[in-house]
């Protein structure tokens, strides 16, 4: 795969993981409130 497409996919995948991780942490924090 070309390096520019690889970089594009990397940002897409990491952004998705960032969203999931943020949501999981936010929801887990709910129990303590």
């Amino acid at each position: 795969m070309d390096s520019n497409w690889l970089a594009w996919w990397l940002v897409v995948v990491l952004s998705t993981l960032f969203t999931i991780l943020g949501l999981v942490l936010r929801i887990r924090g709910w129990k303590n409130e």
Partner: protein
Amino acid sequence: MNDMNVLFNQFQPLPVSGVAYGLWATLGVGVMLLVCIMLGFFSRKQSKSFESFLSGHNDIGPVVTGLALGATWLSGWATLGMMGVTYQFGWSGMWFAGMWTIVGVMPCLFFTGEKMQMYAQKFGARTVSDALGIRFDSKVVQSLSALVMIFFMILYAVGQFKAGATIWYSVTGLQPIWCLLLSGVIVFIYMIVGGYTGTQWSLALQGGLLGIACFILGLVALHYVGGPSALNLKLAAENPVLLDLVRRDLPTVGNAQLFSSPVGIVSTLFIFLTMATGFPHNVARFLGMRKLNKKDYMLITLMVFLVAGPPIFLNAITGLCSRAVFGPHLLNINPWKADLAAPYIAMVAGGKPLTTLYVVGVFAAALSTLSSMVMVMAGNVTRDIIHIWRPQMSHDILLKLTKVFIGIFLLIPFYWTFKNPPALLAVFMGFASIGLGGIFIYCTAVSFYWKRATSTGAILCMVYGVVSTLGGSLFVTRGKIGMGTLEFIVLGGCGILYFAGSMLTKPLPEEKLKKLFGGKNV
């Protein structure tokens, strides 16, 4: 000369605009306006008081709020300007063309959503400045933040008018003046139907529309050029530097720094990270929201991701496809230039159906951002400047004044765009984003969590943010410093003054802090 002919012959001729495209686009935008106007009339009955006009009834659910946040976050920059950036600079433009969209908007949702909802429900905050006034117990912070927001949002609003006008040019081929007037008329028709609740519902509809339009356009454009490998081959045939992720051939000062050096490229991450939370019209979405439970939270996150994620990742690709198809021709078309990249590729790759969908998507994005900004600006003047210093003024007069200011804040950017339209939309709007993001990431987001923050720190941060962005933008446009360097000067300086100013002055009394932060030690 022969080489030039070969170069230009490898590209397709520009699409022919005309009556048929114009009619289709008018029909599409007309239907969207009609639905929005119906939503506005429906909500008008509900928002008769000054307070409910500004921020509704704290009863809006996660799906509508999530889609509306997506719509206000994404503007003419997202649906038109981003494609212009990758069209002009190639793959290196990707970083400034929205690739950090999710990194920006998710923290806005995670860190400010619930806090704003709490300030609205518990303390009656109706605007973002109102919430800041309550947080710092300071009328000066409330009014100053309102002024700062108005200043930067007028700049940002200019971009929305240009986006609307560019789209009319691409489908009708009319003179710039007519395109701008058409764009202005649509905005004014839309804004005459007021009311935050109606706006919130219209925003949600627009969020869905712009997401679908950009997503489909990206896929169709990529298919049209023959897929990922064919796209790169075509770009390389014109000029191999278009494939570079960092354009070392460009200057490392001015706005080109965002594409030419590691400092500039890293700065794009910070610009997006801070501006989503720094945009008051984004944060204001949570003022009318009801209290969320866990399931609601998952829903709102999903909605924001669907609108602000995949469609925007594809925007960078759409601009590259346009470059592969048309070559550098569009750069010679004044005053629209690279911003024509997306509408033209929509016309050749998808014909009238896709173009109509895309035109509706751009108007959905531009109108949603503009209307939410204008509402924030008008509310800032009446609620955060007039009302707090003249509390005896009747709410009826304040409501009427808000509507007058809606008109004024539409006319100012309209006149600006008319007199002096910005060259490349994304860069122009980038300056406003640097200012808003650099200031309000601290004054809003950090202050909601850091008890020690004081009004002095916030005021110093705001004053420095405005002065450094204004002064710095002059240095950037004259090629003395890079735009990425300016981002760090604004963000770093605002942070130093905010934290130092806060640490050197007395925080709010413990009792007041307990009310704002609860029993937790944050």
